[in-house]
């Protein structure tokens, strides 16, 4: 680098003028100064991630536990009509519900109206009604019915509670049918791999990392060029000997550095503050994340080559970020999507990064399992960069 031109007449000028990255150092220097003075950007990159991680990692628990349940047990009313609630068998059944950890019986009611009221007012998510002939039916060997009311306004709670309630019913039936001391024919022993305790942070944080990296890479790079368009400094740069590649790389690299810093910070926070174990190679994760950053830095370039104001750039960035959040499998599993959205997810870079980060962090996957994802990311990145370069060329003429 030191043999760049000292004198317009000297031979070193040749080395200078043939360098396709000419101007890189100057742009890099300037861009780093901008970045250092841009407190918003620093905040975006380093403060927001921590706040988001705390919210998603600590505050949100997707596991359904201790759902408020109200009980209307008619079975005891007929026989006792006194302070003892329910019959012997109904109490045994309710004990099963209580010990499941899914239900929390907080109240008994004594009429259908009261039961409905508890549900409508939202105090109870689940209502259990045990009919007055519950014991009689059991003794007679008929099927005894238990009504389970579930509040469907929260679909994940509704789904899980229904499953657990059915399982309890089935289990209890089996026990009554089998002779004493005999085991059921099939014994299911589930084991949740990779995230044995079903901890939410383990599931959410690797995905969150993918989403957080978007902001710095796509939005901040897009802004950095569009700002120059607005100010008219880009026009000035075109009259200097800066080469397009030097300009682009000089713009990209400081944000690449910032994104790497952000990623290391997120990883450290995830590992040590939230105790999410990293089963695979951190080095591989960083390497593949670089492919992802490259894709989004290129997309940022592409946006800035089209947008003419920061507002415009902001909206175009949103057009990339929203699919990255909703169509990447970060929140909603891809397999359950209608085919059209499933197809769209293949064009969202975050989908591949989601595979990479969950794969390496949770499942300990290696390069052999993930290289296709990296290849897809690189392909999209080069595509975006080529388009961006073409747009920039058109802009000058």
């Amino acid at each position, binding site marked *: 680098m030191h043999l*760049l031109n000292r004198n*317009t007449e000297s031979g070193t*000028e040749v080395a200078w*003028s043939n360098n396709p990255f000419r101007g890189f150092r*100057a742009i890099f220097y300037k861009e780093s100064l901008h970045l250092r003075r841009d407190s918003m950007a620093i905040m975006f990159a380093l403060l927001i991630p921590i706040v988001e991680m705390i919210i998603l990692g600590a505050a949100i628990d997707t596991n359904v536990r201790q759902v408020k349940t109200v009980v209307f047990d008619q079975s005891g009313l007929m026989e006792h009509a006194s302070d003892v609630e329910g019959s012997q068998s109904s109490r045994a059944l309710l004990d099963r519900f209580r010990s499941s950890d899914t239900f929390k019986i907080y109240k008994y009611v004594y009429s259908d109206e009261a039961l409905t009221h508890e549900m409508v007012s939202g105090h109870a998510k689940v209502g259990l009604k045990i009919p007055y002939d519950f014991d009689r039916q059991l003794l007679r060997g008929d099927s005894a019915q238990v009504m389970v009311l579930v509040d469907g306004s929260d679909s994940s709670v509704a789904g899980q509670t229904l499953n657990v309630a059915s399982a309890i019913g089935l289990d209890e039936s089996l026990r009554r049918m089998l002779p004493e001391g005999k085991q059921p024919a099939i014994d299911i022993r589930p084991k949740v791999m990779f995230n044995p305790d079903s901890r939410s942070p383990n599931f959410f944080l690797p995905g969150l990392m993918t989403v957080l990296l978007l902001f710095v890479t796509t939005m901040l790079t897009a802004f950095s060029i569009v700002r120059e368009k607005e100010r*008219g400094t880009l026009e000035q740069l075109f*009259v*200097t*000997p800066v080469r397009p590649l030097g300009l682009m790389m000089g713009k990209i690299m400081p944000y690449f550095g910032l994104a790497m810093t952000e990623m290391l910070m997120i990883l450290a926070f995830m590992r040590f503050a939230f105790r999410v174990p990293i089963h695979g190679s951190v080095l591989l994760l960083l390497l593949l994340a670089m492919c992802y950053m490259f894709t989004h830095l290129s997309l940022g370039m592409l946006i800035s080559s089209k947008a003419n104001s920061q507002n415009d750039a902001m909206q175009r960035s949103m057009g990339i970020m929203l699919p990255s959040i909703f169509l990447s499998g970060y929140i909603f599993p891809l397999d359950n999507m209608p085919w059209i959205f499933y197809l769209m997810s293949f064009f969202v870079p975050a989908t591949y990064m989601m595979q990479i980060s969950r794969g390496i962090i949770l499942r300990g996957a290696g390069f052999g399992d993930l290289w296709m994802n990296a290849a897809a990311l690189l392909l999209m990145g080069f595509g975006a960069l080529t388009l961006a370069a073409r747009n920039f060329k058109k802009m000058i003429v």
Partner: protein
Amino acid sequence: MPAIVADNLVRKYGDFTAVDGVSFQVQPGEVFGFLGPNGSGKTTVIKMLTGILPVTSGRGIVDGIDVTNDPDGVKQRIGYMSQKFSLYDDLTVLENLRFYAQIYGLRGKEAERKIELTMQQNAIEPYKNRLAGKLSGGWKQRLALSCAMMHGPKILYLDEPTAGIDPVARRKLWDLLFDLSGQGITFFVTTHYMDEAERCSHLAYIYYGKLIADGTPETLREIPEVSPPGTRRFEIATKDVTSALRRARTLPFIRSATIFGRSIHALMQDTISEAELQRELEQAGVHPEEIRPLLPDLEDVFVELTYRRQSELEGSRAL
């Protein structure tokens, strides 16, 4: 060797010809004023002569380098300063200068020396640690000029350098330009201000893609389209200019007359002497305080040339 040669430059955008066979030469050390209404092809010519925009046909040679063969070589040899303040507000004066030094490939000690030198030339040393955004308009332009000449180019393009800065700063900037042109730097300046055009040593006027005037301010004032043979111009200073104009226009030997401030500019037959004019005016009821022979000013020249070109264009369209 001329500093800049435009030889039959043409630039087409599809069917539209933005620049139509423009030719001129700028000698080293000249302050070349390039004038023309907005949208007349001014910017396109600048873009071609700075190596940004490829020419459709014709040749452009800047400091001995052909813009088509080696646009990057041209960029390295010129400085360019655009009409709006286009430096980085959030960088200090010194950082802006360092950035431009690096962009032109200056490194280490040499860069520091050049920065030091440029700051002295433009007297911006006292502000070196101030953010560029905090400078006043005139100083911003000075900084922009410093950045554009950091690498010691022999040719500087200034695109409306004084748009929107105050008169004192404007005057100072022009003094600086003449200072630098005295040191051999060639300036290619565009402007809409006639007083600035008057100060240029060489002028060209472009209208609808064609160059319609090229010369020194003096030769332009004397071109026959503006001063037809057999006519002279006089400036007549008088009290009540409005009624005086009405009366003067009744005189048969006066071809045209307009008001300029507190006097009348009149174009008339050169057979009439100053004494005769004085007498005729008195008879018509005008009492001149002073009568002076006058050269047309540049505004007259450009307005006249624009009208002529317009009627030519309309004529050719009618055919």
